[in-house]
């Protein structure tokens, strides 16, 4: 990841919009700090899509059909 000391207006606007969409009330200083690394992080995320080995692979996600939630304090094992 390449760290920068400044971010472009476009990068700052993009980060501000993303955080607003998630309703995270970050300060302007936080937005500017996050924007400095945002482009490099996006490139790293894009790289996740380039591995041919992942083209037909199931994700490490599994939905379980068991309906009941077992509280951790209700069972001693």
């Amino acid at each position: 990841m390449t760290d920068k000391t400044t971010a472009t207006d476009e990068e700052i606007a993009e980060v501000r919009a993303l955080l607003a969409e998630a309703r995270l009330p970050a300060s302007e200083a936080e937005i500017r700090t996050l924007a400095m690394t945002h482009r490099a992080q996006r490139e790293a995320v894009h790289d996740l899509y380039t591995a041919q080995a992942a083209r037909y692979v199931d994700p490490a996600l599994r939905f379980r059909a068991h309906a009941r939630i077992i509280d951790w304090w209700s069972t001693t094992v």
Partner: protein
Amino acid sequence: MTSSPRTLTEAAAALRAGETTSVALTEAALAAADAHDEQTGTYLARFDDYALASAHAADTDFGNGVDRGPLQGIPFGVKDIIAMAEGPTTAQSLVLDRTWGAGRDAPVVARLKTAGAVITGKTSTMEFAVGMPDDSKPFPIPRNPWDTDTWPGGSSSGTGSGVAAGLFFAGLGTDTGGSIRIPAAFCGVTGLMPTFGRVPKSGCVPLGYSLDHIGPLARSASDCAAVLATIAGHHPSDPDSVSAPFRVPEDLGKADLAGLRVGVVRDEHHFPDNGDPALLDTFSAAVAVLAELGATVVEVRLPYWSQMCTANMLTLACEALAYHRSDATERWTDFFAGTRAILAQGAMVSGADYVQAQRMRRVAQDAIDRMFDDVDVIACPTASITAPPVRDYLGERGSTGVLSLFASVHTGYWDCLGNPVLAMPMGFGANGLPLSVQLAGRAFTEATILRTADAFQQVTDWHLATPPLIAAATATTAAA
């Protein structure tokens, strides 16, 4: 044994030999806390009365011939994101609802109590097991007993510093991106991240549901084995936990690694130009010890390194934001600066990105499992630096510090894969602070990496080194 026990294993033997009592060990641990906790910021809550009562009960059991296993009567710390009935869980945060888990024991804590462990208190953490210290918040700043101007690592900061400072023999930490192994490395102790699913994580405030591991920090690999044997095993409340009980390997204590195949990582990620000047020589010397013990050493390169580092942070941030978003929208500035930086990362990727990260995790899991067809253990540095100055992370500096840290610590890759990894001291950096080596194994082969680490520790004593602060206090006490 005539001197004070240095490890959990030694203490357990001394208790059974009648050379000490649990009350004596506990009183010594509480005295060490009185002497050092203000400097190290180890505890968020101490349970002195409860601990002494537990110690008396352990001694009574010993007197009646009741032996609940190696943790019986042993002073023990629990990271304060894990519920324990004796006090509220804070996660070192202003935000966590103090009624969460109140009056209840997490399954791992219940197992420790059943085993007779003497839990002395709840230890400091980075907020919600993520982020960095924040001196604008009303919590202790965790400091490293090796140099109190430096950070003990996190997020299991207090458990690491407490073991190093002799406040307890072992404790629980959690590891989502390195939070057991980083404090183990910076504090010069041994830490074990078990295989994902080996230990139930329910009753622990979640950080990353698919990445969280609970495991021990202690002086030695043998100590970690004893703790793992106590806390491992399926619990129905954690759908990720598996029925894979762990037993302490019978061949611990043997300085013999004949037949073991060790893959050694020497790539540019683990040995960057800005790493500690002593790192390469120290690591090479540790590998040489493994070879002298009979292991066969081959060079390996970890597959999908950069992708797994990205996937770790992406997954952690997304899963953390899902848990915290309701609070974050209402109480943003109550969170530590470093925590806010991580939560924000979760808002800056898409749902598809998250799923793709999980697809890449499958690919990398397959690749590393195939590598373990050719080697039994993979060795690599835990971090390329020693403990950094704590001032570099305080307050708003935590927001950049938490993101830059992972250029120097090499732990998150393994959280993504779920393999068991042990971190142990291997020497000292150019500044005299501890350096650490990781030993990773195939899923559910903790016995192999523990046996490897134990053999290393049979012929070296890095894991027994005492921070100057503690050694000086011990010498003063002895002189008086």
